[in-house]
């Protein structure tokens, strides 16, 4: 079983601060996805990273895939209350099928 560990588990910050969420594994993934989930809803895809060392930017969010394709990070610049939610990373196995989720990072951005 491929395990994904996310840290921190909980994060509470003030509006305008920067933050980084980490997703680590001992397994190699063919790609890695980041989702955000709000209460009462299903996760919504934010980005997919495929190539080792890849960096993708989505407005104030920056996603990075580790060179060895075992880890990833999500950096948010100048966080806003609308960024509040559960951030989940999910890895696609080398066979290209199973989508395994981490335990998530619960982010709260206070006004």
């Amino acid at each position, binding site marked *: 079983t491929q395990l994904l560990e996310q840290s921190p588990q909980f994060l509470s910050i003030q509006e305008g601060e920067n933050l980084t969420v980490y997703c680590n594994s001992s397994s190699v993934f063919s790609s890695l996805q980041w989702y955000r989930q709000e209460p009462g809803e299903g996760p919504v895809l934010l980005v997919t990273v495929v190539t080792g060392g890849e960096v993708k930017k989505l407005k104030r969010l920056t996603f990075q895939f580790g060179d060895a394709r075992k880890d990833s990070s999500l950096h948010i610049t100048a966080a806003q209350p609308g960024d509040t939610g559960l951030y*989940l990373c999910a890895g696609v196995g080398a066979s290209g099928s199973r989508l395994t989720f981490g335990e*998530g990072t619960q982010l709260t951005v206070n006004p």
Partner: protein
Amino acid sequence: EAGVAQSPRYKIIEKRQSVAFWCNPISGHATLYWYQQILGQGPKLLIQFQNNGVVDDSQLPKDRFSAERLKGVDSTLKIQPAKLEDSAVYLCASSLGWKRTEAFFGQGTRLTVV
């Protein structure tokens, strides 16, 4: 484009009763997933279908859980008999398949077993 549809949204049952959840994936999506999400945790894969065939059911408690995807479209997930620890949100997701694994999720069914 319509999203993934799930029903019911909420269900409360007594332990040892049975329950069924329904999912209609996005049209044309070959891969369908059922996940169990316990409060405060990430989704845990229960079963994955590719069209109407099972790709992965290694984490499905087969003594009480079953799932089918007839004709490779809609899917149902059944629990019989339910236990207290089955209380969770059951999420259905679909993806195009064939290495297009970006998953689109339904709103989920919140199950409470009392």
